[in-house]
């Protein structure tokens, strides 16, 4: 009895040891990615307070936060296919966090626009919405992202069930609206928005192929 209990104790220790590096890796990856995603924000704050954002700081902040928002959004979309490619579930465990980072940067981006760029001037904001298609596209993207961020809690996932999944497919729509936002605002140089467009198409294509199979 004793020896057999000892034996099983031994084998479970071996088992734990074998799994140990994997556990370690999985427990640090989230804080690591969190740190990586927040660092640009800290850099922006630092640049802001040291006055090193250049001659047009509001524009610089708008561009930087917009770029961060779309990149986080695309990263969060890439995590699902990554699970399939790596045959490992850790990527999807980062999905909520990256999605919320995308929303965070988009929120800062839009706040800078409203508070600093337009100084909450309703007439100017309305003019922009009505006359500048890229502002409308950005607004569409942001409006889609709001309910997604609000329903990202575990409780909401559980409560909405299947509907949660269909609601959160809206993120592709938001991604498309952001790409349109960028294409329409770019002056001359379309490389960057087209790179984002290409990435979005690949991700969407992957989803479709999986659906058809």
């Amino acid at each position, binding site marked *: 009895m004793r020896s057999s209990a000892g034996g099983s104790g031994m084998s479970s220790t071996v088992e734990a040891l074998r799994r140990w590096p994997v556990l370690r890796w999985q427990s640090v990856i989230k804080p690591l990615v969190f740190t990586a995603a927040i660092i640009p924000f800290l850099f922006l704050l630092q640049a*802001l*307070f040291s*006055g090193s*954002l*250049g*001659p*047009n*700081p*509001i*524009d610089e*902040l708008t561009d930087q936060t917009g770029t961060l928002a779309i990149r986080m959004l695309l990263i969060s979309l890439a995590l699902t296919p990554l699970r399939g490619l790596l045959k490992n579930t850790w990527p999807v465990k980062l999905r909520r966090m990256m999605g919320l980072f995308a929303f965070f940067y988009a929120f800062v981006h839009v706040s800078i626009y409203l508070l*600093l760029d337009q*100084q909450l001037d309703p007439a*100017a904001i309305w*003019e*922009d919405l009505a*006359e*500048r*298609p*890229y502002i409308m596209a950005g607004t569409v993207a942001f409006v889609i992202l709001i309910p997604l961020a609000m329903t990202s809690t575990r409780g909401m996932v559980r409560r909405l069930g299947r509907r949660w999944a269909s609601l959160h497919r809206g993120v592709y729509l938001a991604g498309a609206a952001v790409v349109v936002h960028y294409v*329409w*605002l770019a*002056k*001359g*140089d379309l*490389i960057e928005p087209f790179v984002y467009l290409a990435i979005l198409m690949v991700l969407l294509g992957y989803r479709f192929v999986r659906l058809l199979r």
Partner: protein
Amino acid sequence: MRDWMKMAGIRSSEITDEKLFRQRRQLLQASAAAGVTGLIAMPAMAEGKALNQPIVKSSFSTDEELSTKETVTTYNNFYELGTDKGDPVRYADRLQTEPWSVTIDGECAKPGVYTLEDVLKPHAIEERIYRMRCVEAWSMVIPWNGFSLADLIKRVEPNSRAKYVAFETVVQDDLPGVKRNVLEWPYREGLRMDEALHPLTMLAMGIYGEELPNQNGAPLRLVVPWKYGYKSIKSIVRISFVEEQPVTSWNMSAPQEYGFYSNVNPERSHPRWSQARERRLSGDTGGLSALFASKSDTLYMNGYAEQVAELYQGMDLQKFH
């Protein structure tokens, strides 16, 4: 340090740039008065090479607060050097400006390839402080050094078929922006003859009493203060007198947005930027105050309507934008 200066209403950039600039101006005026050129030692200002000649102050100048030299020389649109605002200063060294010559051709009596020296030599250099309004809804106040384009035009004697003047920027294959076809090179601009002859229209070879930095369009550029900035073509290598309205780069790229005339017009809506207001970039970027500066109303013809409105009498400027 910065904070007490702020409380005292002093901007650090003002101290470094403007004080030296004022000193320089006084010296230049003194040297001009004494008829001495290039003999007085100038206070050293970061990098730029001082213009060694008398500079006459122009009555066309605005007395608005100057943008700092740093602002004017680090925030540029010069797509041959890259599309980011910081690219032109970053890659400024790649632009080769020596030797430089300007081809003047077309409908004129004295066409030819003129060296930069030939172009500049006969002209008295003025300082003109102009507002510069970019189509991207920001503006600066810049002390240009140069002379009226009209004075050069008269030298080469255009004939009656010369209805327009076309300009081209240099194309150097190893410039980072030229390697990519963001625009169709060479960069091209144009003016109607009467616009080109207008006394406000100038050729600049300096700013702040110094040689034009590469990122600002060295060694010779156009400045047309009542038009959006992209009309003021940089690093000019060709000036042609032509009968038909010439093609212009931004118009080729997006005709509905950028017309041939491109006069600053707060009433003409633009799909990317509101042209009704502008952000004045003066250079106060230290600390948070720059973030809460409000925009100002954009003036019709960038505030030069009184001088230039007659050029466009009877024209529908919504159509001919």
